[in-house]
């Protein structure tokens, strides 16, 4: 008998990917902007 673990796996994977991806995107964009602003200050 299926206990619907496929739906559970999909739900937890999608949540991890979405929130993890969003967190990484914020971090990368922040780092990129900080570097750009630092370079512009140096010029």
């Amino acid at each position: 008998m299926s206990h619907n673990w496929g739906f559970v796996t999909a739900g937890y994977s999608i949540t991890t990917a979405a929130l993890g991806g969003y967190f990484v995107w914020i971090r990368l964009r922040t780092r990129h902007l900080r570097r750009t602003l630092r370079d512009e200050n140096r010029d």
Partner: protein
Amino acid sequence: MKRLFLATTVVSLGVTAVFALWVTPPRADQGFDAVRLLYLHAPTAWIAYLAFGVTALASLLWLFPRTRSATWDLLAGASAEVGVVFTGLTLVLGSLWGRPTWGTWWEWDARLTTTAILFFLYLGYLALRRTGTTADERGKRSAIAALIAFADVPVSYLSVTWWQTLHQQGTVFNERLSVKIDGSMAFTLVAAVVSFTLLYGYLVLERFELAQLEEGREARELERAIAERVRAEHVEVAPV
């Protein structure tokens, strides 16, 4: 301090996941093991309401001349963006849970529909934030839009009591139904709400910092463009 905040959030999410996936029991009336989606679906919905509430409050503070500050505008934008991510997840997780329990991925049920409307309203709000030539203009437009969009939050929350819906009524705060969830299920649900609230706080903090950097960069680019234009005009009028 921020690292400690992140570490606490990650640990609490990890503990919640262990309880949600391995400690709590399956329920025959909730799709057997699919009930484990409850520990994601309910907290993400709560965070969506919280995030849009914070956006509405920050927008109000921006609209009052005495409390007007760019901080409120940036906080409103940061919280709305995080809220949109959580609303999207609420819809996806609800659909995944609905398929094994209701036999359908989607129904035009009052709760589902008002939540979908909420998602698109705030997507529109985020698009609106990208318009406007000055920070003041953007602040005013988006603050008014945020307050209008927030009207859908109580409608969505109360839709299950106002209309007959496929979506179940509130379980924890519903005296009429007096449904009790005890033991490991109640603990896991509370742990999930706490850890997702921590995650929301951390994400808003990070997104707010990014918004401040973006704002600084835009202001600097505008200054540079004006300076270049002034310089070009001087060259044009200068005698050869």
